[in-house]
């Protein structure tokens, strides 16, 4: 799509809002346009207030940097009187190495869904993702790399994990391209046109399958490394188990016209198929997939990622579940979704740009408190986004936040820095990227323990759930207990404080906010009644860490 077309679309959006109090211009920043479209939703009645500074700091630090802020961050942000401090904070977070780490976790989960490693190690893959986000690689480029890397070049091998670790299983890859890149779970269309969803047809499924049907895994007999080869021939046929009718299709993106192979020239192959040889065709349908999927003409590609980024920040997709886009489950805010998707196109799929604009909206910054009955969610309609939704912390967010709250992270970083200072390269210890890496490495095994208990392999559920195993782990497990009782950690720090200072330090460290008067007296009552101050403080810290307030981004 050309730039002029984008402007036309924005023009239509503005035209549709003519009777609204806002006067919008195409030159308005995206976040202003978003708020205007949210506020024209028919259900949008009494929006919640903009959330206070402390809640905003916690929310956006979790979303963009993957952890709660430190107690110092909280105090500094509260003391800052600059009118544009929220904008500065967002820009600071987006420019930090923590942002790349957070996106590494988000996209690892999105793309690999906590599958165990097969051909590419998690370390290589995660480093590739993190580097991609440090460079602010566009989603278009990232997607193209994932689908076109064949695993033979060490430089790009990590990107091939998407296909390699699915064993290039045609059905698995077809389904995951539909869900992850196009927002459409076509699985039921594998065996027949979807029984309940008019839009999902068997030819859509096999249209995607046709792009990869010719690709296959091949193992190098010497290095034992697996890579991707491709044949120059082979088409897909499918039979409906309902009707027993048989059909075939060339590769196609959903309802877009089939992509006909170019007339076969001579030779067909750059590298001919032979025993233990990775064949490479002159015309590659798999490379065609990377091209067609990310082409400007493929609106589903940009709508999907726009919707997923919205869901990441707002707690619910405009299409929800995010992989069930069809006529019976349309977007709650179609114009808004178009606006987001087209802005992405205009900005060359720059996700950092989109996340920045989302973070700056009033919609994102609204309180999660339901102050009036209008705010209560209704199951009969999609959310109107007039109140912020609760978002459960991911396993990584939960582990890192607990380690930060209890002072474990700070201690680990200090140890790493002091070790580095004794080496030949002491200067490195002040480098923020080095620090982030050193800390992440130090906390990695404890983070993994959380992922094991709280992470679900396979499709990410739209709904939050919690199991007895998880609660037992938090309640009785050795790990959380170790953090709570950590020497010189939070409970020890609280124990060293005067009575009246405990509540504030606890709340700032764990909940990233100041306590109110009731909360201060609640903590004081606990301390007044104590017979074992140290033990009671540990219990207080534990209860705060496993509280609902901590469990959610709110």
């Amino acid at each position: 799509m050309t730039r002029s077309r984008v402007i036309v679309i924005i023009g239509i959006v503005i035209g549709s809002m003519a009777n609204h109090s806002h006067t919008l211009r195409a030159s308005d920043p995206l976040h202003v346009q978003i708020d205007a479209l949210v506020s024209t939703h028919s259900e949008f009645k009494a929006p919640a207030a903009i959330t206070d500074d402390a809640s905003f700091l916690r929310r956006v630090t979790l979303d963009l940097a993957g952890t709660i802020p430190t107690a110092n961050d909280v105090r500094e942000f509260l003391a800052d009187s600059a009118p544009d401090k929220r904008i500065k904070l967002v820009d600071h977070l987006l420019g930090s190495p923590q942002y790349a780490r957070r996106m590494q976790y988000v996209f690892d989960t999105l793309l690999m869904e906590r599958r165990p490693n097969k051909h590419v190690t998690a370390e290589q893959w995660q480093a590739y993702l993190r580097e991609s986000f440090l460079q602010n690689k566009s989603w278009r480029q990232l997607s193209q790399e994932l689908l076109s890397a064949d695993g033979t070049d060490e430089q790009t091998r990590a990107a091939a994990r998407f296909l390699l670790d699915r064993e290039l299983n045609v059905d698995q890859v077809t389904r995951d391209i539909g869900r992850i890149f196009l927002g459409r779970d076509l699985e039921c269309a594998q065996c027949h046109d979807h029984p309940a969803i008019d839009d999902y047809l068997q030819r859509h499924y096999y249209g995607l399958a046709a792009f990869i049907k010719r690709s296959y895994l091949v193992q190098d007999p010497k290095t034992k490394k697996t890579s991707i080869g491709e044949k120059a021939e082979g088409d897909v046929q499918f039979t409906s188990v309902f009707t027993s009718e048989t059909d075939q299709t060339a590769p196609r993106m959903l309802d877009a016209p089939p992509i006909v192979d170019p007339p076969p020239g001579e030779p067909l192959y750059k590298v001919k198929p032979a025993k233990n040889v990775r064949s490479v065709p002159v015309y590659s349908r798999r490379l065609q997939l990377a091209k067609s999927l990310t082409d400007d003409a493929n609106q589903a590609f940009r709508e999907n990622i726009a919707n997923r980024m919205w869901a990441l920040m707002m707690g619910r997709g405009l299409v929800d579940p995010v992989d069930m886009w069809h006529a019976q489950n349309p977007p709650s805010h179609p114009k808004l979704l178009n606006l987001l998707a087209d802005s992405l196109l205009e900005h060359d799929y720059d996700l950092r740009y989109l996340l920045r604009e989302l973070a700056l909206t009033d919609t994102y910054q609204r309180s999660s408190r339901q102050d009036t009955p209008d705010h209560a969610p209704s199951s009969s309609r999609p959310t109107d986004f007039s109140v912020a939704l609760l978002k459960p912390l991911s396993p990584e967010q939960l582990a890192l936040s607990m380690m930060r709250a209890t002072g474990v992270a700070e201690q680990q970083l200090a140890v790493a820095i002091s070790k580095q200072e004794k080496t030949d390269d002491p200067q490195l210890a002040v480098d923020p990227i080095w620090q982030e890496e050193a800390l992440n490495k130090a906390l990695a095994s404890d983070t993994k323990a959380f992922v094991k208990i709280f992470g679900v392999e396979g499709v990410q559920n739209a709904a939050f759930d919690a199991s007895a195993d998880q609660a037992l782990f938090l309640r009785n497990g050795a790990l959380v207990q170790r953090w709570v009782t950590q020497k010189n950690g939070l409970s020890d720090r609280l124990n060293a404080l005067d009575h009246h200072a405990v509540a504030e330090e606890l709340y700032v460290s764990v909940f990233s906010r100041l306590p109110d008067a009731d909360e201060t007296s609640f903590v004081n009552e606990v301390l007044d009644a104590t017979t074992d101050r140290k033990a009671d403080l540990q219990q207080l810290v534990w209860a705060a860490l496993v509280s609902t307030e901590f469990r959610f981004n709110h």
Partner: protein
Amino acid sequence: MRRNQDCNGIDHVIARRDFLWGSAAGAIGLGALTSPLNAAHLQQQQKRVLQIYLQGGVSQLESWDPKPGTQFGGPFQAIPTSVPGIHISELLPHTASRMHLLSLVRSINSKIGDHRQGMLFMEKGRRAGDYPYFGSVVSKYLAPTDAELPGYIHISKRGIVDSTAAFLGARHAQLKLLGDQAPANLASPKSIDEPADDARQRLRVQFDRRFSKQRSRALTDVYNSSFEQAEKLMKRKAMFEGDVGEQDLDRYGRHDFGRHCILARDLLENGATCVKVTHHGYDTHAENFNFHLEQLGEFDKTFSMLLDDIHDRGMLDSTLVIVYSEMGRTPKINTKYGRDHWGTAWSVAMGGCGIQPAAVIGKTNDEGTEVVEREVDGGHLFHTYLSALGLDSTMDHDISGKSIPIGDPAAAPIEELLA
């Protein structure tokens, strides 16, 4: 366009048998129905499930569908059972004398000869996809909301971590017990005595009360319920750690499978909704006959004791018992006296709640190489199990915007097996 030819069929909409959705018969279209069943009503009936999973693929020829004296029949004889006309392998004498409580399906053609894929098909009733396991479905619809134990408990000595609940959510995921060991983290940390533990729970609740006051309870309630479930398990810690009676051990056997089945019985008696016990070791590529002699010897006596206890306690009418594998074994005997993977013609046994007793469904040919009558697969069995429990498997799960058929629309229950 040709769609919904089968899925809009009348039997997708009209409730089966005595099911409670008669009034929904007028509603056309799968998405129109908001709830697959009257869950509260079913929960009151306290129906339960016992799954015995013979992992590795038990040989149908050495168990439920013997072919003595034929080319591939192997060395074992068939013996008469308590049901005139039904013969099973002589390796199962105790089970044979309880055949009147069970039924057999001898005509499974699942077409899968892979352990994991076969297992997933038998658990999910689908050949592929992120569908919940049978036990998670049972937990979702049959476990009382105030159940004293998690809805789906799996006792197994080993095995991979399975994601069983799919879109039904973690509350219905299997709680895996490693053998008869207690669940992980069941005991409070040593440094925290009971009063201190109570005190910190009170603090947790106090923190929650403040936060949840003006916020949507949809998510916070789920989180809190996980702590309540944890509490239930901790209160029943003794059950997991209790001494097993000598008499029970004498009857069930002093081996892992015996202990696991005693625990399964205790769990079912104490309010568990679905309990799965895995008996490992049926992947007999070599020495098939010796292995089955040993394995089924262990299974036969122990399973029979468990069946007796469930029956004697009056629970069999409300407990669906399923004995299954992920596939069967090849009729052809290989050079190591083994049988290989075989999804083409094999059997399962079931009984109790809602199952017509003493029935045999389907038939294989004389050499056991093919199904010749009433071919079924994992999809049909999945529908059948749910139907036996009174659940309309042709209805949809209604999960946040998705309307998902409970059983595969391309399959249906084996009606003649339903009581």
